[in-house]
């Protein structure tokens, strides 16, 4: 375990150290002390590495993550794990806006709540939120799974493509072209696996599944007036 102290080192020094260690493929363990809400902590890691951030972070923590396992022992600011490719990002507290935006893969595990636009334009990432999520979540989500143990805000899954959304609590409203769908055995199995990976104590049967009605995929000349 190597400790990098943000009170002593610059953000660039810390990120360069982490990026180098990830490239070395040694699956080393690092701890980041005194993050104090700093932006862009532990971004662009391209390889196996275990990073624990001892406190809350600001914008864009763990962005573009690949293979690394990053844990934030606090809350995360806007854009956490943006465009993540693989690996695991765990937030012990709450996440702010657009958590996991455009993510291609890996698991984003948020133990608290996530605010608005969670999983916006997600492209294959799995996101598990143990609390609730805000409005416009999974907007234009293309692929992957968004699992919410609490409630969802307004316009969930607006203009959704093929991402799956599972919500245990109440959904304030569904966005355009997002509909509730039947929960089939393969969905229950998928959900059980995601809940187990995220360490979430919930039964798959308690969730409802939402997905795309697929009516917005193509331009429809009959709807020209509406555009």
């Amino acid at each position, binding site marked *: 375990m190597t400790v990098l102290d943000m009170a002593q080192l610059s953000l660039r020094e810390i990120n360069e150290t982490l990026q180098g260690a990830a490239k070395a493929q040694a699956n080393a363990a690092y701890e980041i002390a005194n993050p104090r809400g700093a932006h862009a902590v532990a971004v662009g890691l391209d390889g196996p590495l275990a990073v624990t951030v001892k406190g809350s972070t600001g914008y864009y923590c763990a962005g573009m993550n690949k293979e690394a396992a990053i844990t934030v022992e606090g809350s995360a600011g806007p854009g956490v794990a943006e465009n993540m490719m693989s690996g695991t990002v765990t937030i012990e507290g709450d996440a702010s*806006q657009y958590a996991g935006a455009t993510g291609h893969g890996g698991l984003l595990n948020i133990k608290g709540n996530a605010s608005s636009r969670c999983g916006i334009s997600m492209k294959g990432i799995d996101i598990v939120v143990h609390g609730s999520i805000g409005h416009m979540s999974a907007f234009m989500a293309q692929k992957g799974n968004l699992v919410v143990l609490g409630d969802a805000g307004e316009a969930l899954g607006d203009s959704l493509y093929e991402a799956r959304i599972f919500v245990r609590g109440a959904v304030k409203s569904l966005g355009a072209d997002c509909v509730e769908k039947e929960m089939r055995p393969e969905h229950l199995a998928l959900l059980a696996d995601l809940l187990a990976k995220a360490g979430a104590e919930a039964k798959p049967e308690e969730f409802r599944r939402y997905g795309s009605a697929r009516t917005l995929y193509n331009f429809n000349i009959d709807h020209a007036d509406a555009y």
Partner: protein
Amino acid sequence: MCGIVGLFLKNEGLRPRLGAMLADMLVTMTDRGPDSAGIAIYGDDGARGQVKVTIQSDAPAAAFAGLGDALAEELGTPVAMKAVDTHAVLSVAEGALAPLLEALEARGLRVMGTGRSMEIYKETGLPKDVAERFGIRAMGGSHGIGHTRMATESAVTTLGAHPFSTAADQCLVHNGSLSNHNQMRRKLAKKGVFTRTENDTEVGAAYISSRIAEGATLGEALEGTLADLDGFFTFVTGTETGFGVVRDPIACKPAVMAETGDYVAFASEYRAFADLPGIEAARVWEPEPATVYFWER
């Protein structure tokens, strides 16, 4: 972009440290607004029946020399004066407020705000320089709000800096931009409510003040912003007894709050909380869109 901060003390013992805590929070938000900065601080109330007027001058040496005595003689009432850099705080009996404001206007001095406890300090420049000029760290009080500005809707000037005060002991800071401020300015003017600048936030402040003057509570006035103001906003408003927070329904302007047994704090980013006492154990959360929060003593 802009940064906003607010701090409301629950623990009276922290009152002497309010200015220091608020100044530290303000300086961490420099990246979000390096153009200008300002604070409104609710300090110790003046003597009963007294009202404070914060004024500003670009030529303070000439404007403030002997000003208190000259005003006292002109108005026939005692006028206390405390000059701080480009600002000065005048204190008079409540009954003498109207003639004092007239006398100040006649001298071409800018009134930043009035109130029993509120003082406003704002200038162009880096937040750390602004905080230093006015000695904000040494100020005590019960609560205060602050703003670091990255100008979008009007020029980088002292009058364009936040907070804006449009009624006694009321002020507003804003992150965002209002899109119907000209229309609202005309509507308010028809009701006899006038603003002094081209700034969108001043219109927001005037809207809230006019609603309160019409009998609305602070909570109702803040609810009203959701229906009547269009655009992006995270507002933090200060009153004599507390502060309130509201975000527009889209809520793309960031906001985070922290609460302990000692204080309630607001900031655009968590960074501003890093030095607050006991922050590790604080409840930290993001205020919901289109939801009014306020704390009063």
